[in-house]
């Protein structure tokens, strides 16, 4: 029996008014994949990631999650995506944002239990038990009763990771998770992400940390002009790129160390 992809992406397109940001992307995301997405700003890499949990609604193509193609086809128009279907997928495809986006009026524990309680209707004590386990995983168990405003940027991002993990997603999306952090706080967040990758969880990561991508990812995607220019193992894409655009991009990021 062959292994089913978690996501099958076919011909994915996204336009904002006249601006075609994604111009046809195909990709299979397999269980255990850790895919790093690189590209200059404006290449469409964040939009691509945001389409995968429907933060952005695709304007063309199909996304199949665990065997189910999301949305319903409409003649001559982009697929229709009902809210109920999207809330289902989003529970299985977690996302961590550049700006953390913690809920400031809830405690750390409240942030992590919110999805379990409101979306999955779990009872309070089981939700708190799961949430505390996730907080332990990101090393913040002792901050459970604090409010986000009392945390450092790195701690906030780790709480955001715990919040996403709490729903037991089968795919985690990280959208430039360290770009908003002071340099000295980047390490703690990358360590947590690396820990999650080492557990064999499937993830996709938009990042500027080329060195991190090299060490953690099993596949690297280089995007430009809304399409995948090059995809392959990190040794190949990062050390021996075939595509001229990839070569130019990496030449500008030569400061990274492998």
């Amino acid at each position, binding site marked *: 029996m062959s292994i089913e992809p978690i996501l099958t992406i076919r011909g994915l397109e996204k336009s904002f008014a006249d601006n075609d940001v994604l111009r046809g992307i195909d990709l299979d995301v397999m269980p255990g994949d850790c895919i790093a997405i690189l590209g200059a700003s404006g290449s469409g890499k964040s939009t691509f990631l945001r389409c995968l*949990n429907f*933060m952005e609604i695709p304007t063309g193509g199909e996304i199949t999650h665990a065997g189910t193609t999301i949305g319903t086809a409409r003649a001559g128009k982009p697929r229709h995506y009902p*809210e109920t279907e999207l809330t289902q997928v*989003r529970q299985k495809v977690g996302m961590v944002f550049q700006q953390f986006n913690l*809920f400031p*009026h809830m405690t750390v524990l409240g942030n992590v239990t919110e999805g379990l309680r409101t979306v999955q209707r779990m009872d309070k004590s089981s939700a708190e038990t799961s949430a505390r386990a996730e907080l332990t995983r990101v090393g913040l168990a002792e901050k459970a009763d604090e409010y986000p405003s009392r945390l450092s940027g790195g701690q906030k991002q780790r709480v955001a990771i715990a*919040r*996403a993990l709490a729903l037991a997603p089968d795919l985690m999306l990280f959208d430039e998770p360290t770009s908003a952090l002071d340099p000295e706080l980047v390490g703690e967040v990358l360590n947590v992400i690396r820990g999650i990758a080492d557990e064999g969880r499937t993830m996709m990561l938009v990042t500027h940390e080329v060195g991190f991508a090299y060490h953690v990812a099993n596949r690297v995607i280089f995007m430009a002009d809304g399409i995948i220019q090059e995809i392959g193992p990190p040794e190949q894409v990062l050390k021996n790129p075939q595509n001229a655009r990839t070569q130019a991009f990496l030449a500008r990021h030569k400061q990274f160390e492998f």
Partner: protein
Amino acid sequence: MDYVWDFGSVYEYRAALWVGLINTLRIFGICLFAGLSLGLAMGLARYSIRRWLRWPAACFIEFFRNTPVLVQIFWFYFAFPILAPFEISALMAAALGITLNSAAFSAEIFRGGIQSIDPGQWEAGRAIGMRYREIMARIILPQAVRRMMPALTNRGIEIFKMTTLASAIAYADLLHQARLIASVNFNPIEAYTVVALAFFVILYPIVRVTYVLERRMAKGD
């Protein structure tokens, strides 16, 4: 001036004033609750992604914001019964006018408060599978209401003072009762002074409390 103040003549009619006060509080309670609830609904509709909700809400808000409350009250009391087959009480007419007007103003407060919340909060809610309704109720409104507190307090005070307009259609509120007393006793100075003081004594402590609350909320932010 050698005017001799005589509050005794007002005190004699304290039972009538008491009735007026109760009636004032009654219409205030109705208008505060109904006005803010309808205002929230209108604010949400105005901000909705659905066009068929948006534009009727916008029409409602603009219409009631740009017509005088007293005209609305007169319209409901004197004009409406001619068009509709039933009588409308003074309380109902006044409460309708004040409620609709307050709803229009507070709709703008709610809309502004909701729009002031970082879009990232919506995204974070969506990303964990929450529905629009759940995000609004659990993430957006709790944060927005804090920011709206000063504006909503002002609205509440306005509503309380607006209730005196009901006396224009002979609703037996505090002002109406005072006018009766004044016309019977020929003591308008005392009667209206008592009414003004009554409003001040009720509103000022509330305002003080909200100052404290605002300061506390600002700290918690």
